[in-house]
């Protein structure tokens, strides 16, 4: 089944983000082989040229490497993957903070809110 894409962002970027998240979550391990361009295109329901661009971008970011005739593999360089994890974390947090500040919350309120949500009142979560 092809996944749905957000209509207003380049598709290659969306696939790139999905793959990065899968790597960070550990669903795709260091050194693991990625599906071939065509397989991935079929899975996502997109043009093979788009997947080609995703893989080229992953290579440029040194998250994956292409081995001639074998396909694309996630890097075995653990420090690069740790850095990716940090990057994604920081990006998410920055976006969240920017949103909260725009809505008029102070840093103290944000901190208190997050702490309460994550640590306190576990029984009432998920309302």
């Amino acid at each position, binding site marked *: 089944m092809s996944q749905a*894409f957000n*209509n207003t962002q*380049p598709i290659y970027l969306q696939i790139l983000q999905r793959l990065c998240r899968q790597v960070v979550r550990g669903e795709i391990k260091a050194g693991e082989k990625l599906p071939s361009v*065509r397989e991935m295109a079929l899975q*996502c329901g*997109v*043009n093979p*040229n*788009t997947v080609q661009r995703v893989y080229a971008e992953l290579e440029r970011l040194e998250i994956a490497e292409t081995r001639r005739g074998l396909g694309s593999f996630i890097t075995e360089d653990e420090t690069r993957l740790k850095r990716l994890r940090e990057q994604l974390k920081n990006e998410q947090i920055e976006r969240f903070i920017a949103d909260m500040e725009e809505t008029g919350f102070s840093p103290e309120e944000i901190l208190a809110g997050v702490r309460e949500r994550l640590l306190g009142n576990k029984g009432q979560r998920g309302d």
Partner: protein
Amino acid sequence: MSEHTVKFTNVTKKYLGRMALNNVSFDLPRGKITALVGPNGSGKSTILKLAAGLVHPTQGSVTVLGKTANRRIAGEVAYLSESDFLYPFFTVEETLKFNAGLFADFDLQKAKEILSFMDLEPDKKVKHLSKGNRGRLKIVLALSRRAPLILMDEPLSGLDPMVRDSIIKSMISHLDLQGQTVLMSTHEVAEVEPVLDLVISINEGKITCIEDVENIREQHGLSLVDWMKEALAK
């Protein structure tokens, strides 16, 4: 080999004095999937027929792989017409063999693969196929050719969502974009959007825009459908 698969230079086409295309110029790079979009009667089918060499320009020139487009390029161009061109008395398999006889680049092995990918029964007679399955069979015929240029006129129109999905999937898995270029006209823009490289928007016989689909999202922050509305409003 030339860089461009299809090249239109100042092409005007009139049918009995009625203007179908008005001084149109564009070229298509190799290995891309391009959609021709625009209202009914805007000139999409005319562009495809000109590229297939089935009609001649009133003025200007059309070249395919550096050669003037005429009947003789049929061996290098796979053209899927909007109308039904299948013989009803053939079975599915006979239809494949008939096409293998017509076109030297027809890959029978590949045709059988796509056939099973699409769940089509080889022994069924064409006249007993549903409209959806006839639509699928037409796609099988176009994709089984190792032609450098594949032209498809409304390959998805009038078919249910499941058939459309299987057609798009088979295009992804069976096109060889190292060597093949695709130009298709369509109204099902939202559905084909993820498989497109380029889009050409045409209105009243003139090209209003040619854009890279990912650019439309990146620079304009628009989905293709919204972009089309803007392009037409110009």
